[in-house]
């Protein structure tokens, strides 16, 4: 099935938004989507979601004759599968251009950088060595497949344990997991791919979505490990354009994010592996965890691809507003038993301050039509502030409200 063509208005709008340094999903220009890693029941099996892009990776191993050119090393094969399940315009069972590109980028990032100790995978030199195979299946396409696939591949390799072998003269015994504990792979360093996209006006974004990928003019993928070392690099013009390459300007950002990402992957792998070592069946990953949600509205924000940057952070925002107000308010003691809550002058609406009126009225409205799930947090903070005010009498709060409004009106 052919890909739906990009309409003019989508293209114009994305370009306009990037001009104004906004993105449709409310992210900053150089902000990545949240990464989630869940492990399956086998060693070396994981599902990774990068926003709505999802990939499954599985590492498997068998014993083969090593290559003649490298007789004392094991082998590593990486295979990325793009099938119509991820997006209808991918063709099944054919080496398409995007799949070759992703494959090669991962090979350069993981294989050529020699991050895995292949020599330890040799059993008998020139005769027998472990052959590792990483299969990555993209199951949902929402842009930036390379990053998602590289995270999945790395997490799966770090999680993978191979069976122990013992060789005696001519014989090789492969021990089952019950006989001897399986062994993890030796990994020297942890490279991940970080992708960027450059737009016509020269602005660069990190972790592009599918729509953004269709609009952008040049793409950059860097394979970076946590020691700020570059393992692979790919910069390509997607359309005929003349934007300068952005490698020098964003490499720092890439390195910082890579370090963050690697520590996230390490942490989630460590937790799962430890749980398995201790045989805590409850704690270690099962794929069902990745769809189980703890809240009824958990899917709510996920399913909205276009949102304002403050959407979803609303609960925190409410707190912030309340705190702001607290700072601006001053308690003036008039009598012994009463206190007046006033807004500090100079910060008022119309003088460059926040439009507190708008905030007040709308938050009042919200309280009336109390939205159970979202607003619980908010009402709590409200009470909290009210507690502060309640220095003396209980009828105080209404008066305060009046005072502030009068104040604004004058």
């Amino acid at each position, binding site marked *: 099935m052919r890909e739906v063509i990009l309409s*003019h*208005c989508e293209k114009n709008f994305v370009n306009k938004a990037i001009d104004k340094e*906004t993105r449709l999903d409310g992210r900053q220009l150089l902000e990545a989507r949240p990464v989630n890693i869940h492990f399956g029941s086998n060693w070396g099996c994981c599902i990774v979601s990068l926003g709505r892009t999802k990939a499954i990776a599985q590492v498997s191993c068998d014993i083969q004759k090593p290559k003649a050119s490298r007789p004392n090393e094991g082998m590593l094969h990486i295979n990325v599968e793009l099938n119509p399940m991820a997006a209808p315009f991918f063709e099944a069972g054919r080496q398409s251009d995007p799949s070759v590109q992703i494959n090669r980028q991962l090979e350069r990032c993981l294989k050529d950088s020699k991050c895995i100790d292949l020599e330890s995978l040799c059993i008998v030199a020139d005769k027998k060595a472990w052959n590792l195979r990483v299969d990555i299946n993209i199951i949902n396409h929402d842009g930036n497949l390379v990053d998602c696939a590289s995270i999945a591949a790395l997490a799966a390799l770090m999680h993978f344990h191979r069976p122990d072998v013992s060789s005696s003269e001519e014989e090789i015994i492969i021990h089952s997991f019950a006989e001897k504990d399986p062994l993890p792979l030796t990994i020297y360093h942890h490279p991940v791919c970080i992708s960027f996209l450059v737009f016509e006006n020269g602005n660069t974004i990190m972790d592009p979505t599918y729509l953004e990928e269709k609009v952008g003019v040049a793409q950059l993928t860097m394979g970076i490990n946590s020691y700020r070392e570059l393992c692979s690099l790919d910069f390509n013009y997607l359309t005929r354009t003349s934007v300068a390459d952005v490698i020098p300007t964003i490499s720092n950002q890439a390195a910082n994010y890579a370090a963050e990402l690697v520590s996230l992957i390490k942490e989630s792998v460590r937790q799962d592996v430890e749980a398995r070592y201790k045989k805590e069946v409850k704690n270690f990953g099962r794929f069902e965890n990745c769809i189980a949600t703890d809240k009824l509205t958990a899917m709510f924000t996920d399913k909205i691809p276009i*949102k304002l940057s403050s959407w979803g952070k609303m609960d925190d925002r409410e707190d912030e507003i309340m705190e702001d107000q607290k700072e601006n308010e001053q308690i003036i003691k008039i009598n012994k038993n009463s206190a007046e809550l006033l807004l500090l002058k100079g910060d008022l609406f119309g003088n460059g301050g926040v439009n507190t009126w708008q905030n007040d009225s709308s938050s009042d409205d919200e309280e009336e039509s109390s939205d159970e799930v979202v607003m619980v947090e908010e009402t709590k903070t409200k009470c909290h502030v009210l507690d502060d005010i309640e220095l003396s009498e209980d009828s105080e709060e209404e008066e305060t409200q009046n005072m502030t409004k009068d104040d604004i009106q004058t």
Partner: protein
Amino acid sequence: MEVTVGDVAMPGDIIKDISTHNTKDKIILGPGLRRDGEVIVASKAGVLRKGQSATYYIDSYQKRYIPNRGENVVGIVTQKVGDIFKVDIAASEQAGLSYMAFEGASKRNRPDVQVGDVVFAKLLVASKDMEPELVCVDSLGKKGKLGVLSSDGMLFTCSFSLVRKILNPECPLFKMLGKEQAYDLAVGMNGRVWIKARSVHETIAVANAILAAEYTALSEMNSLCNRIAKMLLQQR
């Protein structure tokens, strides 16, 4: 299992209400319902609804469009073939749109439509055996609200249940949003929505509100709009 109007029906459920009706009455079965001998069986998962008189249908969640005659859709022009434009309307097949189907179009005066433009059009022909055909004029030759949409706006997709929800005259969303922001809007029954507001931020805000409306009860639309308005204010 047997279900009645207002219940959630699963494929294979038997609809109790209808099968007990008198055979003299005329019953209209809408999408998702099927007659199997004496009984009426659901073939989609969703809420069973009853329309005017004895019209029944299942209100289900769906994302792939099946063209229906007379519906307004938002499509993307993908190709110019001779005298017709090919328009992608997210259905199984591309629809045809003749260049004569625009207001004031004649052999001399061709409408200015480019590949990649977004059009708001009405389905004139929609049958399962033929290519769907679109028009951008009504029977009097006037364009009304149909035609090419400006490329300053934004296009996004949503589910059909959301389209039906927001197009329902009882839904207060558009009126409430309109109090805060000015915007142009075209909602196609094929799940494509085109919006144009004054700024990028406002456009995103309106899109956000529309998408969030899918998970918001009608009574809570007010708070949703307030929330959006407040967020817009903060971002300024």
